[in-house]
Each structure stands twice: as structure tokens, then as C-alpha cells.
């Protein structure tokens, strides 16, 4: 192999890395993400929890926007592992002890669309944990499908890549599970009590973006139930 071959290979490797695996995946607008960022902007070095897969550009984006500390806990991978091990019935119990963080220790949570892939018991267990670890005045960003999944729908998760505050690139990748039943508003609201829905946007692609906030008094008033 000649020296020029080695140089060209190195250049190609560098180009691939710099490109970051750019694909033709579609870019969709997001309405709630900007509000999510705004809600955390006033906090000094907030702690952010990302439930999706690691996306390098997202880490950079949130780090630069918020100067935050980011924890990446890929719950999608947990779901896949439970399916591959045939232990799906243990998923709710697993999720209820999945997060070792202290109560009210996380300032922001990015759920993406994880709840679309969970059964009711698992979703409730996960939501309960997220409510527990979210700090007062903290924000939680989640997306919910409004369309009922069909039996022929492909089993894919979506990696959401932040393009900017107003847009996300959707990059599907193989999953072990299809989307489950689309949750109605009432169930979503009850699942996350006592968080309050401060923003809700129905996008043209049938995704509902929801921004939850934890009221300051939530910890002392856990039984408050919002009206539908």
C-alpha cells in the first residue's frame, strides 16, 4: 500500500467522521423543544437526562445551549433487551428501579417517544420514576403518537437529531418492538401527575409534543389531580 493510499484513506475516514453519518432522513419542525430549552435557560448548569440513544450532535447542542450536564440513559435499549431475553413482563419492575437519581435531582428530561413503545404498566412505572427525579420547576419533553399503530407498521425506533431549536431530524433504526397503543390525552395527563402540561402541540406528522413542568409545590401536594 502506497503512502498516498494511506493518506486518502485517512482523509476519507476524517470526512466520514465529520459528516457524522449524514443521511437523507426527513427533518420535521418541533414546537416544544424551543420551549423546553427556554424553560431551562435560567438554570445554572442544569442536569439533563436523555432517555434516547446517544447522539453526539445532540450532546453538543444541549451542552452548548444550556451549559448543562447530560446523562444518557437509553431506555429503548432496555426495552429491546427485555424482549430479546423474553422478560418483557419484568419491564415495569425494572423501570421502577431503573433510575438511581435522588428525588428532585434532574432539571430536564428528554423522553422523546419512548412511551409509544411501552405497555401501560411499564409506561406508568417509568412516568412515576421520572416524576420522582424531576426537580421543582423542571421540564419534561415527550412525544406521543396520535395515530393507532397498524399491524404492518415496521418495528423501528426513531433517533431524533436536533438540527436547531425548531427542527428535528428523524432517523429510524431497527427495533424489537412496534409502537403500542396511542395514548389519549387523559391517560397522558394522569400518568404524569402531578406534573402540569404547559405546552402541547399537535404536529402534521401525527405526533403530539408535550412539555410538562413540575410545579414548585408539587412535592408537597402529590394528590392534586388536574381536570381533564
Amino acid at each position: 500500500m502506497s503512502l498516498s493510499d494511506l493518506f486518502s484513506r485517512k482523509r476519507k475516514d476524517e470526512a466520514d467522521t465529520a459528516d457524522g453519518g449524514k443521511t437523507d432522513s426527513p427533518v420535521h419542525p418541533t414546537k416544544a423543544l424551543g420551549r423546553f430549552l427556554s424553560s431551562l435557560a435560567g438554570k445554572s448548569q442544569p442536569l439533563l437526562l436523555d432517555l434516547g440513544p446517544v447522539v453526539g450532535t445532540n450532546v453538543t447542542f444541549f451542552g452548548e445551549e444550556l451549559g448543562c450536564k447530560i446523562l444518557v440513559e437509553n431506555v429503548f435499549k432496555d426495552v429491546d433487551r427485555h424482549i430479546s431475553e423474553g422478560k418483557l413482563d419484568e419491564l415495569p419492575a425494572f423501570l421502577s428501579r431503573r433510575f438511581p437519581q435522588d428525588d428532585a435531582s434532574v432539571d430536564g428530561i428528554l423522553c422523546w417517544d419512548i412511551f409509544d413503545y411501552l405497555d401501560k404498566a411499564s409506561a406508568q412505572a417509568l412516568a412515576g420514576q421520572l416524576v420522582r427525579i424531576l426537580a421543582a420547576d423542571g421540564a419534561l419533553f415527550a412525544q406521543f403518537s396520535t395515530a393507532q399503530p397498524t399491524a404492518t407498521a415496521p418495528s423501528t425506533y426513531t433517533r431524533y437529531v436536533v438540527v436547531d431549536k425548531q427542527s428535528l431530524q428523524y432517523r429510524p433504526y431497527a427495533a424489537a418492538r412496534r409502537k403500542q397503543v396511542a395514548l389519549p390525552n387523559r391517560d397522558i395527563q394522569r400518568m404524569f401527575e402531578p406534573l402540569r402540561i404547559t405546552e402541547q402541540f399537535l404536529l402534521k406528522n401525527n405526533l403530539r409534543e408535550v412539555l410538562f413542568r413540575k410545579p414548585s409545590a408539587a412535592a408537597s401536594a402529590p394528590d392534586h389531580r388536574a381536570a381533564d
Partner: protein
Amino acid sequence: MWKRDEAVKPTGPATPAGPAAPAQQTQANVPAQPDSRRQQMMERDVVNIGKSVVIKGELNGSEDLTVEGHVEGKIELRDHVLTIGPNGKIKAQVFAKAVIVLGEVNGNVTATEKVDIRDGGSVDGDIVSPRVAIAEGAHFRGSVDMQRKGGQPQAQQSRPSQGQQQAQPQASSVPVQPAAAH
């Protein structure tokens, strides 16, 4: 990166593996390199720790370092670049100006400028750095702490999540999928 093995190939009698040996070998090889290569190496002033080298303990330095071997303990290159080569395996706390990871790192990484986890690189630990790049195909599990310019470092701040994260029962790793975004 290319032809790195040549830089650490012994030219004389075998010398015992150790932290200082690769540096000597690198210097010994310089005259055999083409002029441009030699000049480049001198400018970069990079020391290699070869594949067969195992270091246990504290590693300090005042020049750029490439690790292809195994290091356990602590690496401190406050003003220089640390590169963990594809064959490098680090089980240590790392402090450097910039850290480039192509191999495996198990431990917390603190950089004053940048941490760059390249395709195939793996980090299990917490990262503290103003700039962090995680490439497609990289593996990362832990937290990332990027301070704003002028902000106070959080490395010593004990948010409860960090210590406990290692203790969680079935915490999963989070490899970036091949088709994933960067």
C-alpha cells in the same frame, strides 16, 4: 495514525517494555524516516505507548501522548493531547487538554479543551469538557458535563446521579447504532 507501528518497531536489541521505552524507540527511529515525516514527528512531539506495554500507576507528561497499550491508574497531560489508539485500553482517570478516543476508556475523562470519541471508540465514564464530540459508531455510557465559557467546572460537584450510576443493577450501555446520527 498511519503506520504507527513503524514508529514503535524496535531497531536494536529488544528492550524491556516500560513507559520510557516507547519514547526512546520513537526517537531512535526518527533518522530512518523521510525528512517530511521526521519533521512532522518532531513538530508534534508525540510519544507512543506501544501495544505490548502495560502501565499500572500514575502517568504524567508534558508532551502529546498516544496510547496503544494498557494503562491502569491515572493519566495526566494537563497541557497536551492524549490519543487512545484503536488498540489502547485505559482503565484510569484521565486529565488532559484534549482527549481523542479510538480505543477503550473505562474511567472519568476531564479535558480542558475537547473530548472526541471517534468511530469505534468507547468510553464508560463521565466526561467533563467544554467541547465533546461523539461520532457515529462510538460507544458511550455516562454523563457529559460541558461548562459554558466562564462557568465553573463541575467535576468535583457531586450530583447524586454519578456515584449511583455505576451501582445500578442492570444499567445498559448505549452504543450508537451504525445507522445512527452523529
